[in-house]
């Protein structure tokens, strides 16, 4: 397989999961698209190295999360993070009201918990790879994941949670 073919295969397989992971991490949709596209371009620019990475999709998401978004977007997010995420959720769910609670629950998680959930769910990374991608210890990843899943389950099954 040529480098072009392997990159094309990688892009086709991972472009959507990576974008979903970045959006679920709390980045607004437009910024996430720009950041993920930029990350894939950088991956192609260094494909001999990135293709040997133990988890190239994690490299993409980490690069996208680190990507310098525009000053105005960043400023706006600093000022009104909660509002922006909520707006993104509403926009995302306009056509799917039944998913509203779950998406709101993901958006309401603390940033690190969102990132851990995003990497575990969309990239199917194990604890070690998630820890490497987010520069956290494996124990911290486990703790974040535990709290995040508890919060999500409570959202999905409030009655059960209340009884437990």
């Amino acid at each position, binding site marked *: 397989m040529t480098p072009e073919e392997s990159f094309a295969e990688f*892009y086709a397989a991972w472009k959507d999961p990576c974008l979903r992971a970045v959006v*679920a991490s709390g980045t607004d949709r437009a910024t996430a698209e720009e950041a993920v596209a930029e990350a894939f371009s950088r*991956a192609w620019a260094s494909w001999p190295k990135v293709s040997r990475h133990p988890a190239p999709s994690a490299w993409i998401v980490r690069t996208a999360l680190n990507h310098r978004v525009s000053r*105005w977007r*960043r400023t706006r997010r600093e000022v009104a993070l909660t509002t922006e995420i909520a707006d993104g959720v509403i926009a995302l769910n306009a*056509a799917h009201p039944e998913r509203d609670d779950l998406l709101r629950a993901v958006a309401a998680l603390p940033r690190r918990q969102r990132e851990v959930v995003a990497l575990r769910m969309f990239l199917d990374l194990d604890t070690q790879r998630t820890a490497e991608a987010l520069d956290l210890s494996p124990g911290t990843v486990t703790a974040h994941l535990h709290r995040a*899943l508890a919060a999500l389950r409570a959202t999905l099954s409030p009655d059960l949670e209340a009884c437990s």
Partner: protein
Amino acid sequence: MSTDLRTDVTRAYADVTLADPLEQIVRRGRRIRRARRARQAAPALLVAAAVAVGVTVVREDESFGPPGPVELVDYSVPAFPLSFERLPAGLDGPHASLDPSFDEVGPGTAHAGWSDPADPDSGIGLSVRADGPGMDGADEVGDAEIAGEDATVYRSEVSGGADVFSVVWERTDDQWVGVTGSGRFGSEAAVVDLARGVVDRGFAVPLQVSLAPRGWVVVAYKMDRVLTLADPAGRPATEASARTLTVHLPPEPSAPADLPRDVGATDGRMDEVTVQGRPGYLLPTSEVWFLQASLADGTVFTLQAPLDLTPEQVVEVADGVGRS
């Protein structure tokens, strides 16, 4: 992790898809690679890149220890990097400013503007930034090719005024350029024509310092009124805890006798010093050194510097303040 929960979450994001064609990603990647090779081939640029990396790697969760002793070195304020090959007739300028980065200790977006004193609605702007395009709120109205690179044209509505047109493109790796036009320059054709005349011919920033703490970088300026340098080991200059050194030309400076009260000098202390051969005043405050002195033409300037500079170093920096 629960399979059901994973399925539910994955399904909830099912309509989040990336539409960028592979060809576009690859083309952008090639450009990044070309630019990287060009940098590697130019030792001077390579050094510049290393310096840039050195000053920008500041992690969000990093803690910073107490600053070490400050060493002053010769310094030259970097020029505004670009200009127009030919400027339309009748325009005044440039009026240059630099916004600090919110993300790191370094420059954010540099702006230069030219205006028409006879026609206040007409003017042009040139902006340079490392990331882009940052055109929130603007409508994408067209495409163009600028020096072989894909560019996008935007139109922004201005309350109470005519629409503003902008064209944005990545001129080289990590250099996004925007050209904006309003009034008689407010059309797609006008801004694209101007953009094709952008050249690597910088111009000097009006306010200058000739000495600065080693490693510090210019992070902001505003015309000939403000110039701010920052410590790369500190926080971004947009944060209150940043370690910065700012020269300011106040429109209404304090009378020397009022300075201790106006700046909140510690114990009301104010030392008379000599700056550029003229009288100056140095005051410690709870957060910074505050110095007030004057340029050769009588213009009063102030200098605010961290308290770990010695009084002598503050005066030395002030001795090197000037205008280009």
